[in-house]
């Protein structure tokens, strides 16, 4: 998966900015789910040792079916934002009646494929995104983006809110919750690496270095470098999750402002959204490199 530079010019129309933001958030979310499962693997192995049996279901914190379900749901949100973008671009305005229905059917078709996941957040988001498709079909003749956005806003908020909740954030602006995906990752990292962070490499220095032989020092330095890399990767993951929660919240706020249609709040909300896109793209590029 590759992230484009994603330069959102200041004069990008609001609907196009929203579309770009949600596509970026979609890529970021998928990358983060993958990294969370990778980082949690040591913990799953530890738990597996304590159990009586071990299968592929025990390998990941988030089941592949749940991750695939979120992929489809986010594709539905992308399609909805693309419909708003088409409508406000003027290029396809005359054909919007057909395009809107087509987008609506596509969205509903996408979420109907979400069958493998029983996750509560997925179920709420799936319902909300199916409603977005319904709004596009219902309002296909209106050709008024704001009318559509207004009708769709509760569903948009519900779908995006479910994703923010899934990542382990609560409130507006989203703050880390004491439990959930982020909290679990933090505890996992801290405990699985306590021997390194609290003993061998406490205070970012190699303990007992002066008493080591040259061969021991060589090994210790290599381990230390590896540890710094692991710690940096974890920091990047936490930053990515925090940035994504903020970006999703800004997208939700921008959608509401767009639906309400007042120039001042729209300008303000979309300026924040465009700034957030850049942050998300940069952090996700860093995460991808890690």
């Amino acid at each position, binding site marked *: 998966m590759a992230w484009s530079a994603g330069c959102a010019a200041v004069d990008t129309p609001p609907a196009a900015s929203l579309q770009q933001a949600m596509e970026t958030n979609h890529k970021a979310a998928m990358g983060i789910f993958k990294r969370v499962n990778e980082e949690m693997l040591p913990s799953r192995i*530890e738990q597996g040792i304590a159990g009586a049996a071990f299968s592929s279901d025990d390998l990941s914190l988030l089941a592949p079916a749940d991750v695939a379900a979120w992929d489809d749901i986010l594709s539905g949100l992308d399609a909805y934002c693309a419909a708003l973008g088409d409508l406000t671009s003027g290029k396809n305005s005359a054909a919007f009646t057909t395009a809107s229905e087509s987008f609506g059917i596509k969205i509903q078709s996408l979420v109907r494929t979400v069958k493998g996941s029983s996750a509560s957040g997925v179920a709420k988001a799936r319902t909300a995104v199916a409603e977005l498709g319904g709004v596009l079909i219902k309002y296909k003749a209106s050709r008024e983006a704001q009318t559509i956005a207004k009708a769709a806003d509760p569903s948009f908020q519900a779908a995006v809110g479910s994703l923010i909740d*899934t990542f382990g954030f609560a409130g507006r602006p989203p703050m880390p919750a004491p439990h959930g995906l982020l909290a679990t990752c933090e505890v996992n990292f801290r405990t699985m690496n306590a*021997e390194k962070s609290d003993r061998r490499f406490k205070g970012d220095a190699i303990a007992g270095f002066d008493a080591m032989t040259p061969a021991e020092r060589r090994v210790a330095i290599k381990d230390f470098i590896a540890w710094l890399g692991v710690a940096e990767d974890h920091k990047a993951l936490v930053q990515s999750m925090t940035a994504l929660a903020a970006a999703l919240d800004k997208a939700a706020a921008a959608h509401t402002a767009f639906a309400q249609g007042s120039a001042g709040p729209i300008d303000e909300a979309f300026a924040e959204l465009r700034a957030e896109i850049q942050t998300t793209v940069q952090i996700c590029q860093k995460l991808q490199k890690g």
Partner: protein
Amino acid sequence: MATIDDLEDLQDGISTSIQTLLRAYDQCADPVESAALLLQTKQLAAQMSQIETSLFHQQAVQASPMVDRAFASAEGYTSQLKDMAGNLDRVSDIIATGAKLVDGVTQIVGWLGL
């Protein structure tokens, strides 16, 4: 009755207990006690991730007097470990309580999704 909220509260209690165990580990000079503390933190972190997977699927635990007692016991141990954060010299007490918490949560995790 064990609800989703109960499981989230249990996660919060485990998280706080892990902090106490890690602080004790940080100060502990005895290798055997250090190893025991480290093992307990890893076991509890792994159990917390198992609970997170269940929460992701909204899997709670069937209510029963036994389940209620297990949650009450676990809550008691997490509360004790929280209090022990103020006196980290009592390493043997911390390890003993940590072991009881690990056993209690093992029982609860075994019931998840049944």
